[in-house]
């Protein structure tokens, strides 16, 4: 069914009777051409592009809970293409371009809002690094504008410019950066994949990966065995556990990242703002809640909940940057399990098992990657060749030292990225 404004009006006039299910709930078949483990953003977009770009539709996405219940529905929704290291640059640039046509492509309003992202800097050294980054972004074909202090004040007059511990020197403005509605992204891809014949199987946990003579032959699940010629692992925070089913030990650590939303407020923050002297980034959702987050909780954990010290740390940074938010009330907090990689960048690659593919290591930044990750992973699974925008995401780069993409420069200490 095609969605449109007219359709909304028509259904309104006729009692909303015409809307069908957004996706089916099929029972799993015993055999598929391909199985995608994980019904998060990346798994769903992979299935969508496999069907749309490569005509492969005999696919199942196996999700242990409900579709979109993992990190795709827990993030702070920032979408940007402001990476500066080769490998990342071209990938996120590719992703942003896919975002820019996503609503029309999916026929689903994911509310991708290019409201502009401003990264603040607070010292000469930080400015120099942002100038380097901004130039890399433009060289890549993306957009960046250097703002001085007064430039920042024009956009963000509510920041504390006078009584601050770390004065605001300026900011790097990325006008095409912004946010999107996270659930809608999952649902839009799910609906698109389902419409093209992909089976989305919920409440179906993969418990084993079947391998014969070095080839994958299928998976074991809580809803029975499913055979498949190719299997893609796209399980974010659970990557190490699922890859272990195929005898792999991934260089991934799972950590908790918390996020927060306040009660609804009338528009007050129009951009995405990120603080350079404390981990803090914030935007305001279309519903009016301030959505923000900060650092990892620092210890490896699968608990999907955070602790108070990091809550305080995040709020302190927020209040230091924009003391007008003191009377905004935090409504909810939650945690997601982050698949932290040694260089802070992801992997989209084959594995030592033939027919088994891996997509992981998204850290705290895989939301913006959802379109390109699915697009490139689908390409890899369908053609066995990496997509040109994702040639850098090799699993062996840690062994060879070639093409490491440590944007933060913190090294193979997962919790510091």
């Amino acid at each position: 069914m095609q969605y449109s404004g007219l359709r909304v009006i028509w259904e309104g006039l006729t009692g909303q009777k015409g809307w069908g299910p957004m996706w089916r709930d099929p029972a799993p078949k015993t055999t598929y051409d391909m199985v995608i483990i994980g019904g998060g953003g990346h798994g769903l977009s992979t299935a969508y592009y496999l069907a749309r770009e490569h005509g492969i539709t005999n696919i199942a996405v196996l999700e242990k809970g409900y579709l979109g219940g993992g990190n795709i529905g827990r993030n702070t929704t920032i979408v940007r293409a402001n990476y500066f290291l080769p490998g990342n640059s071209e990938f996120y640039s590719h992703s942003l371009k896919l975002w820019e046509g996503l609503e029309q492509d999916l026929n689903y309003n994911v509310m991708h809002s290019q409201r502009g992202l401003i990264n603040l800097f607070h010292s000469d050294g930080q400015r120099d690094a942002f100038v380097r980054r901004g130039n890399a972004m433009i060289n890549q074909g993306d957009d960046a504008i250097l703002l001085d202090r007064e430039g920042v004040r024009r956009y963000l007059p509510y920041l504390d410019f006078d009584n601050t511990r770390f004065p605001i020197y300026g900011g790097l403005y990325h006008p095409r950066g912004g946010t999107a509605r996270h659930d809608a992204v999952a649902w839009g891809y799910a609906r698109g994949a389902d419409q093209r014949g992909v089976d989305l199987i919920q409440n179906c946990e993969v418990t084993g990966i079947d391998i014969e003579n070095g080839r994958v032959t299928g998976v074991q699940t809580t809803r029975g065995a499913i055979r498949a010629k190719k299997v893609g692992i796209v399980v974010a925070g659970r990557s190490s556990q699922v890859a272990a089913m195929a005898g792999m030990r991934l260089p991934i650590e799972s950590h908790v990242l918390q996020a927060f939303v306040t009660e609804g407020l009338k528009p007050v923050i129009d951009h995405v703002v990120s603080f350079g002297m404390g981990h803090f980034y914030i935007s305001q959702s279309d519903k009016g809640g301030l959505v923000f987050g900060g650092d990892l909780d620092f210890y490896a954990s699968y608990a999907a909940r955070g602790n108070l010290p990091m809550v305080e740390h995040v709020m302190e940074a927020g209040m230091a940057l924009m003391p007008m938010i003191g009377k905004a009330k935090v409504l909810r907090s939650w945690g997601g399990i982050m698949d932290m990689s040694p260089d802070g960048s992801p992997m989209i690659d084959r594995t030592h098992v033939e027919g088994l593919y891996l997509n992981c290591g998204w850290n705290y930044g895989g939301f913006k990657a959802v379109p390109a990750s699915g697009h490139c992973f689908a390409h890899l699974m369908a053609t066995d060749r990496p997509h040109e925008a994702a040639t850098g995401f090799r699993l062996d780069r840690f062994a060879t030292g070639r093409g490491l993409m440590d944007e933060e420069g913190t090294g193979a200490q997962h919790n510091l990225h």
Partner: protein
Amino acid sequence: MSQSHRIDGGQIDRSRTFRFRFDGVGYNGHPGDTLASALLANGVRLMGRSFKYHRPRGPMTAGSEEPNALVELRTGARQEPNTRATVAELFDGMRAQSQNRWPSLRFDALSVNDRLNTFFTAGFYYKTFMWPAAFWEKVYEPIIRRAAGLGSLSAKHDPDVYDKGFLHCDLLVIGAGPAGLMATLTAGRAGLRVILADEDFRMGGRLNAETFTIGDQSGAGWAEATVAELASLPNVRLMPRTTVIGAFDHGVYGAVERVADHLPEPAPGQPRQILWRIYAGRTVLAGGATERPIAFPDNDRPGILLAGALRAYANRWGVAVGKRVAVFTNNDDGWRTAHDLAAKGIEVVAVIDPREDGPEAGSLRAIRGGEVVATKGRLGLTEITVRSGKGRLETLRVEALGVSGGWNPNVNITSHHRSRPVWDEDIAAFVPGAGGPPGLMAAGAAAGRLSTHGALASGQAAALEVAEALGKQATADTLPQAEDAPVNIRPLWQVAKEGRAWIDQQNDVTVKDVKLAHQENFTSVEHLKRYTTLGMATDQGKTGNVLGLAIMAELTGRSIPETGTTIYRPPYTPVAMGALAGRSRGREFKPFRLTPSHKWATEQGAVFVEVGMWLRAQWFPRPGETHWRQSVDREVLQTRKSVGICDVTTLGKIDIQGTDAGAFLNRVYANTFATLPVGKCRYGLMLREDGIVYDDGTTARMGENEYVMTTTTANAVGVFRHLEYCRQCLWPDMDVQIISTTEAWAQFSVAGPNARNLLEKIVDQDISDAAFPYMGAGNVTVCGGLRARLFRISFSGELAYEIAVPTRYGDALIRRLVAEGKEFDAVVYGTEALGVMRVEKGHVAGNELNGQTTALNMGLGKMVSKKKDSIGMVLSQREGMVTEDGLRLVGVKPVKPDGKLEAGSHFLPIGARPVLANDGGWLTSKVYSPHLGCDIALGYLKGGTDKIGQRMRAVNLLTGLDTEVEIVSPHFFDPEGERLRG
């Protein structure tokens, strides 16, 4: 204005009158009132507008779960949006405004949305606003944003002060109703250290809102007496106005105390709120229960309240929400409301009970098997239509309707560790499930024990269990007599009738939306919530979640437990961000670290700069200097000409001692340290495990087993932590002790041709070149006996020393050095001049040590010794890290002397387009060199060593700068290093 709806009784102080304003209109109330009770007493039912349809709303509850009566409290910078009128304690002079309406609460233009409701269903926005693509940011989104949101922030800096504190106790009791009071009393009498926290300003919980008795007292009277006894126990801390917001790991609870929210404004110095981190041995959750509504058409009008709230207003606040009322209840508790109101002389026109077998009606009129099927009254309820069991329709004129669909135990905090509540058929509600926070147990209504006796008994039992677990003797005193009525309920979730029936009132989620979600296959609870926004309003689903879930269960034909439940997350009620931040904001966000010469530098009028947590002198302007460059150039030139002094205390200093100290250094540094003789220092390069350069600095051997390491300012903490990790985790067998001495020593660099001459005037020992050669290090004394450390090292490329004295002598030393330096025209220089001199010498610093570069990139590849193993050595030799065409550190000079350079610019070949393929690297640091008379820079250039002498462009696309440059050696000044050894 008269308090037209005030009746007798209640716990308000009628001897005093408060004046307050709501939307500019003045009213009277009393101490003990909330804003909502006072407005209701004045006959005001309309207090807000809903989120989506802008429906007129009044309070639905009398507590913190209130979804409708949200107002902006106070004005100016203290304006607080989304304040629940139902818990806002009235004070004299209070000012409140309604919100999310325009132009006024009574006439809200956006209530047109309500007319358009047939289109604005759940999730309609996912299906439209897609065309044309460019319209989203420009047209649709701005309109949506403006219509959305509730109250407004003032956009001014929050002027209030917030505080934080820690508390420790054996037992934390959350909630001061009968269960919590009894638990506290039992544990308190047994001598346990107990904290009793309650969000209300008056302890007693439901007892304050009820008429029943405990023993021979009224419930409220018993509560008051018990609180009085508890107040007399030194081991019990009573914390009213304190909300426990979350259960975190290891028995840590967050709690927010509202210290001054009930005052017009905080007294000077008084915090508005305090965040308490409570470390509790055990916890009893006695947080009570929350009533839930029933879905029937137009069940959201001002004047329709939960039945328990209706009687709370009457019993606790002496307010008749309406003079003619009805009650709609599917359980016996709703009848209490009818009886209590009738006893207060309020006209109860009917009790509508869908059950045929409800309790005895007494003198009340019961409509058994009945349901409310319609309501009227645009800005406040005027009538309801009731369908009797026999199907007869009847219209009743009422001002208020009390609705009870049953009570949900407040299990929220039990699921903060993601434990799922379980369904209890008997009370038709969720009760705490297994796997809650360790050490926490629920009691009273929170545990599903909904009678007063049940609350007292379970509170006592919980306390006894805690006492026993903690090895304390507690006695089970005889419980006072209290009602023990069973929960008689027959679930009724929705009234089958055309029309819109609200589930989540604030977010305007109706039964139709749940149906639509079902139709579109959003049937899992989480999908239901996310698609319809059910439970995402400011009440966090406290009023609507279970109802919505139950209706979904009816639609799918599954049971409620099969349908599931969403779990609750902190905070229990929304918390001001200011409270969670406390005092760490503004200038107090992070502490300042001041150097030992700070006072002196301030006297000199130095300009300071933040370097991490430090404040360092950036330059020292002299009279007549109008531009910072004049000061910096002078400092550089004078240092190189004669002598300059700089405070370098901020560099990390780590004392390393033990018989294995040398071997330890050999492992943590990439270059060899085993051969360093006593009395010498050496430049050390430290790699990370992944082979990337981590830090650099000099380390001196002060004695056989004594070393002093210096680190960069930026990495001082990180390196220390790294060394601790190595020592404790990697090589626990090594005999190595380390201590950070960064704060213990004041250290100054003395550099320039006259450095030795100056130092000779204060150092007591012989420091001639022979006695103290280049890279010498040792303990000396200065000024006639003060112990000091001296290192002959140089960052500036000059003959230079660093001299360190115990920090308390730092101020004296700078003054002495300056005084003695007069004869040499010594200057004191700041970080800018330091930076200029290090770039002139091609030394790497923060911008080059950016955590992404190898020793090879820096031109220091030879320093990584392969003769020994050290951290990072193996991985630094990975094939991808030793490529010849990799980045190399180079120097950069503009071809034309007046050409400008900017750090961060990228290298492009001459004539090449700025695209990634042509990108050759970037400029890391740029300074103006007064010696070369032009801008100079360092940079990383692909294959840079082979490009020395070539020309390229340094392009900054952000500023439009495009300068032709020559690639040179990074050693701009004195490349042979002759001055060093002078």
